[in-house]
């Protein structure tokens, strides 16, 4: 047995939550040791545990990460007011963690009152990351700015903020110089540019600056000149009249940013201004052009996010030039149009899978797919870890053979043995789930829509996927049988979402009764659920 000091020292090298959780299961001594030295706690489902329990078990925590609403909330499938409120957590943290330094929230409802409590309760507060959160206004941000003397990170990722005034930025006092990350890209209205400029000028450690759309292109060089040390930069609006003075000052400003690794923003692009970034292209690892309908990025990067306007030809260029590409994201420019004008097909993805040997992660929206393309992709890139394919029209078959895409996705799970995340679309029968259950042993998260024929499909997944922790299903003919037969599996998972399937209210009640460790929730907007027959399907 090692003395405590040694154990503690060893544990200090463990940063992964899963490792720490495993360590605490070894024996009572290790459990005690580990809980006293855990500095960061991750709660993947805010309803899984009571905040008081966390505070009691981990008294020395400095950073908390919480997730609230289910993923499908992003696509409006979760009703308003469902939950994910961070308030009860913040209230407990204010009492139990006075030295709290970091809060990271995803898909949670955060009120201005919460932000005020955060601002006033934690004297050492340094990091606030809000991802896909809502419920607060610029007043809440003003509280943070006024009171968090040591703030290093203010990162608003795709939040919905009620924008009452652009002056919240001015609440950062003149003595405040510690800012390292500022991401306000999601704000729709103007922030005070002079306050922004002064803030940037007095933040020598600023590494990430992501502006919002209202910051005009003409003012970009002023900001960049004040922060040549930036590593991650998101422009504002990238459109302006073509003027040589603006062009050359932008070009100079970009070339003086020797550490720039990531570029994003590029709203409303005026293509003539794109070449100003060419001087930094070779050093970029991440480029997000998904707000710019530009068609030819001759840029080398590791992570590329674009619109389908890039077309197959653009992706072909990517496959030949971006040899270090690890992640490709292609969003649809017109998701609700039946026949798109852009020439983006399965071919683009196949090219990239052939040419980019380091490709690991794909999110691809397109309008047609074939089994043979999927098979090629799986054979080209067995190292894929994340494969998310969205064929825009639901239940569309292989466009060449008119067969379901079972074999194609089957090939993906069979060849890509390290696959941890999969999203499927197109015409799929129970057969694809048999392949998944048989082969996808490392799969952690699976998203299914408009697929399958019967409970057998769901049964294959729940009984076969040993590592499955997150399953989200919509509009599939899966009912009670597979769910109840695999109830014990559900306890090993973080969450299961099923909507517009064939699960009955009776089965939900039974599941809740038989498995008291599970949180079973029925969301159905009809009035008298209890008066429905037991076998009637719920939403």
């Amino acid at each position, binding site marked *: 047995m090692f003395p405590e000091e040694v154990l503690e020292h060893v544990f200090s090298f463990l940063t992964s939550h899963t490792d720490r959780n495993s360590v605490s299961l070894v024996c009572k001594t290790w459990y005690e040791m580990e809980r006293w030295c855990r500095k960061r706690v991750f709660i993947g489902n805010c309803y899984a545990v009571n905040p008081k329990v966390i505070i009691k078990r981990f008294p020395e925590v400095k950073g908390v990460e919480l997730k609230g609403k289910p993923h*499908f909330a*992003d*696509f*409006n*499938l979760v009703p308003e007011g469902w939950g994910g409120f961070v308030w009860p957590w913040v209230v407990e943290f204010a009492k139990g963690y006075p030295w709290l330094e970091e809060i990271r929230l995803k898909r949670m409802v955060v009120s201005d009152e919460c932000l005020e409590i955060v601002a006033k309760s934690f004297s050492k507060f340094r990091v606030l990351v809000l991802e896909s959160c809502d419920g607060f206004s610029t007043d809440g941000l003003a509280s943070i700015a006024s009171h968090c003397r040591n703030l290093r990170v203010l990162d608003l990722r*795709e939040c*919905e903020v009620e924008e009452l005034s652009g002056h919240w930025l001015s609440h950062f006092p003149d003595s405040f110089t510690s800012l390292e990350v500022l991401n306000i890209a*999601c704000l729709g209205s103007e922030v005070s540019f002079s306050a922004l400029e002064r803030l940037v000028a007095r933040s020598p450690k600023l590494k990430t600056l992501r502006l919002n759309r209202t910051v005009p292109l003409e003012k970009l060089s002023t900001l960049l000149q004040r922060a040549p040390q930036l590593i991650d930069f998101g422009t504002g609006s990238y*459109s*302006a*009249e073509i003027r040589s003075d603006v062009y050359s000052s932008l070009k100079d400003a970009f070339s003086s940013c020797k550490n720039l690794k990531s570029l994003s923003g590029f*709203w*409303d692009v*005026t293509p003539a201004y794109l070449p100003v970034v060419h001087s930094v292209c070779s050093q970029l690892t991440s480029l997000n052009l*998904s*707000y710019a*309908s530009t068609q030819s990025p001759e840029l080398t990067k590791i992570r590329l996010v674009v619109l389908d306007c890039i077309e197959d030809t653009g992706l072909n260029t990517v496959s030949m030039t971006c040899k270090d590409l690890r992640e490709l994201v292609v*969003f*649809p*420019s*017109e*998701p*609700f*149009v*039946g*026949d798109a004008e852009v020439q983006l097909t399965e071919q683009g993805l196949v090219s990239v899978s052939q040419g980019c040997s380091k490709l690991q992660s794909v999110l691809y*929206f397109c309008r047609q797919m074939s089994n043979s393309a999927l098979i090629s992709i799986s054979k080209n890139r067995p190292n894929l870890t994340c494969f998310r394919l*969205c064929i*825009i029209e*639901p*239940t569309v078959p292989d466009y060449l053979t008119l067969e379901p895409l079972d074999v194609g996705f089957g090939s993906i799970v069979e060849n890509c043995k390290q696959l941890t995340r999969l999203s499927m679309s197109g015409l799929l029968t129970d057969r694809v789930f*048999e392949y998944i259950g048989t082969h996808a042993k490392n799969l952690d998260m699976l998203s299914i*829509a*408009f697929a399958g024929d*019967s409970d*057998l499909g769901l*049964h294959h997944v729940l009984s076969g996927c040993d590592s499955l922790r997150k399953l989200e299903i*919509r*509009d*599939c*003919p899966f*009912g*009670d*049988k597979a769910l*109840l*037969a695999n*109830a014990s599996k559900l306890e090993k998972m973080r969450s299961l979402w099923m909507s*517009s*399937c*064939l699960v*009955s209210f*009776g*089965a939900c009640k*039974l*599941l809740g009764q*038989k498995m008291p460790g599970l949180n079973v929730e029925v969301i159905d907007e009809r009035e008298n659920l209890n008066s429905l027959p*037991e*076998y*009637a*399907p719920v939403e």
Partner: protein
Amino acid sequence: MDLINFEATELRLGLPGSTDEWDKKSTASPVNTNNKRSSSEMGSSVSDETGSSRSPSLAKAQVVGWPPVRSYRKNIIQGKKSESESGSGMYVKVSMVGAPYLRKVDLKVYKSYDELLKGLQDMFKCNIGLYSEKEGYKSEFAPTYEDKDGDWMLLGDVPWDMFLTSCRRLRIMKSCEVIES
């Protein structure tokens, strides 16, 4: 594994006495017709923006939450489309009675009718004068514009912001033409 074997070997936590009966009772309709919440919202809004006809596939019912594109991204793309229709800046054609060719002005550059009129006067070297609600313009010229409905309106009657959204092009007519029509 076919369905028969599955049933023989399954560990059921089913309701007592329940069999497959409910399967037969329940609506086994293909799930993509189960769109209680679908809406056909796309058709009208897009034709307002473009004013031209789009492909018929646009008007079909839209399933909630599909394709899985986040709303802020949808808004950005739609917002971008309307801007690109009129270019970055809001250029409209201006014709002047007697002038051999048309000009273009960027309406976004101006903040009010006064500024616009001044700009037009500079551009065409004419004197349009001041607007009066009762009598229009007391000068040789009358500035008019074609609105979204295709009607020719006198400049100045509606609030500036409303004018900006409805103005398609400008025409500086002679006052006598206006009176006659």
